[in-house]
């Protein structure tokens, strides 16, 4: 009985919130608050709220305030589909930001195309998010991050040309599309640059937390670098365990799965590792963001890549709406596609209209020194 009252209350809430829709521009946000990516859900939500506050404080967009409707998708594609349908039909959003997961965005792509609502992926690096399997661009899907082939090529280039290493070992997550993608493209580019893969081992993300079996095998080879195309704890744990197994000389290289919380887990062992990243914490342009994030949430924002990308996607969207001159989804789409040399906080963004990927986006290489990530250099492979 009490439960049905609750339902009714919820329903009323929805209706009421629908009623003020006219005053604001509604933007949807797909966040992985529960489920496998729960570790990243809170920072992205915090960051996008922060961006909205900042934009609204400066008078909003086209004189209207931005309203962010945040839905959790449990880090699962099947749930993302319903969340997006609800954002489109029920909340009548003009655009959708997120998610960070490629799988979810591939599943929502046909929906947003049909409905004509633009969606910007934050950390979804799989090429299929914006381009379908026949190579045709998905008109309403965009992304702010670089893609797996680019990132994989970066790692390969960096390892072969910058570090001048010839022998690499890979430890990747069989269950993760992200990890599989990076591994594939890294292997391709590293061998093209003349390197050899001397060991290639997989593991199952989620349940497997012990990588010593694979590491022991890798230790027995003469690999000079260990490539870790993984996310979060699956990056920190192999490094920690490798150091326990006495693997001192191997250099760790990885992609944008890096997060600062890894230092807490792997400690000293992380020193001297390299990460292809979207931005560096020391970047002076990012200081205001980190300061206001710290002030508002009293947190260092250790998962800053996702937070910054969520933050900047809203700025990108706001800019596109301004340029479009209307909050009409189709116009916003066109403006997003036409983005050129837009200065965001973490990078300068130009859209490739054929792929909806950022064009020639520099990657930042981070290295870890004394438990802190430090800007190493900007690279762009030839």
């Amino acid at each position, binding site marked *: 009985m009490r439960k049905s009252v609750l*339902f009714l209350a*919820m*329903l009323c*809430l*929805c209706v009421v*919130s629908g009623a003020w829709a006219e005053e604001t521009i509604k933007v949807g946000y797909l*966040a992985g*608050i*529960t*489920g496998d990516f729960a570790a990243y*859900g809170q920072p992205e939500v915090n960051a996008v709220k922060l961006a909205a506050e900042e934009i609204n404080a400066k008078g909003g967009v086209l004189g209207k305030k931005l309203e962010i409707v*945040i*839905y*959790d998708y*449990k880090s*699962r*594609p*099947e*749930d993302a*589909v*319903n*969340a997006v*349908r*609800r954002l*489109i*039909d*029920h909340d009548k959003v003009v655009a959708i930001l997120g998610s960070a997961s490629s*799988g979810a965005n*591939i*599943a929502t792509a*046909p*929906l947003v195309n*049909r*409905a004509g609502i633009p969606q910007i992926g934050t950390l979804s690096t*799989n090429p*299929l998010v914006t381009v*379908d*399997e*026949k190579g045709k661009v998905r008109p309403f899907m965009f992304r702010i991050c670089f893609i797996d082939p680019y990132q994989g090529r970066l790692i390969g280039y960096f390892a072969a040309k910058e570090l001048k290493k010839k022998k690499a070992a890979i430890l990747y*997550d*069989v*269950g*993760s*599309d992200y*990890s*599989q*993608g990076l591994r594939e493209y890294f292997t391709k580019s590293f061998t093209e640059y003349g390197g050899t893969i001397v060991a290639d081992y997989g593991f*199952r993300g989620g349940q497997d937390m012990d990588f010593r079996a694979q590491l022991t095998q890798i230790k027995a080879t003469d690999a000079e670098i260990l490539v870790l195309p993984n996310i979060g704890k699956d990056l920190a744990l192999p490094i920690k365990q490798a150091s326990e197994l006495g693997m001192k000389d191997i250099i760790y290289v990885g992609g944008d799965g890096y997060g600062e919380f890894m230092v807490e887990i792997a400690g000293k062992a992380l020193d001297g590792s390299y990460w292809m990243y979207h931005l560096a914490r020391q970047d002076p342009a990012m200081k205001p963001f980190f300061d206001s994030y710290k002030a508002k949430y009293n947190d260092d924002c250790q998962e800053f890549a996702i937070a910054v990308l969520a933050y900047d996607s809203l700025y990108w969207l706001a800019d596109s709406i301004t340029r479009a001159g209307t909050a009409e989804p189709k116009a916003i789409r066109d403006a997003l596609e036409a983005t050129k040399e837009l200065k965001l906080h973490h990078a300068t963004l130009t859209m490739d209209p054929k792929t909806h990927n950022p064009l020639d986006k520099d990657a930042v290489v981070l290295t870890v020194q004394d438990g802190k990530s430090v800007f190493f250099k900007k690279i762009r492979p030839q």
Partner: protein
Amino acid sequence: MSGYTEGIIILLCINAIAGMGVSLLTGFAGVFSLGHAAYMALGAYTTAILTVQYSMHWLPAIVAGGIVAMIVAYFIGVPTLRLMGDYFAIASLGLGEAIRLILENWQSVTRGARGYPGIDPYTTLPVAVGAFLILLILMFNFINSRYGRACKACRDDYIAASLLGFNTANIRILALVLSAFYCGVAGALLGGFLSFIQPVMFDMMKSTELTAVVVFGGLGSMSGTLLGTLVITLVTELFRPISQYRMLIYGAVLVIIMVIRPEGILGNRELPSFFRRFLRRDS
């Protein structure tokens, strides 16, 4: 009708089809499974591969998806259905995970963990509702048939049923194979609904959800299963605005219903007789 409502109804139909399958096995034959998401995965992948790779029409492809799930279920059922009670449930958990891991590793066919994109969105509202209604009628015919009653006899007293001359082993396998068919079809429809599938969608969490819905609705009540599906799906949708509490509420609902009414919403009655009894008690 808005796309959102439509999406929920399609998802409801898909969940209900899978739920009916598990309900037949668990509620009627008394066999508990913690691995039925794997049959959904088999159906989904078979249909996806047939429609995308071999350009088969979606209708026979869906049926083929169900049949592949059935065949696999048969070969799994023959050795494992000898196991009783918890042990079958545990074995099915292991097998379900094993099937999912095979799909994940068999990259040349399934494209591995990156998922299988580009499936035709053939699961439209009429298709989902149509499939649901057809399978619903077939299911009610089955449970009211001689075989359906035999299933119940097996559940209530396995030994007595075998003494009464039922071939209990065959009946348990029949129930398993049929439930796999339903789940396979549900998986195939899910593939067409999302137009993208990944092995991770069909993990243990999904399997437990299937069984939980059946227990929630009431073991041995097909309409209870449908009601359970409705409630669980609507709860997760209604609480979407308070996203972070959604899973907490889902977990709490499972516990609370087990504590307050372990026999499920409807117990082992079907909806009409439940209402009759309810009204009688009121007056």
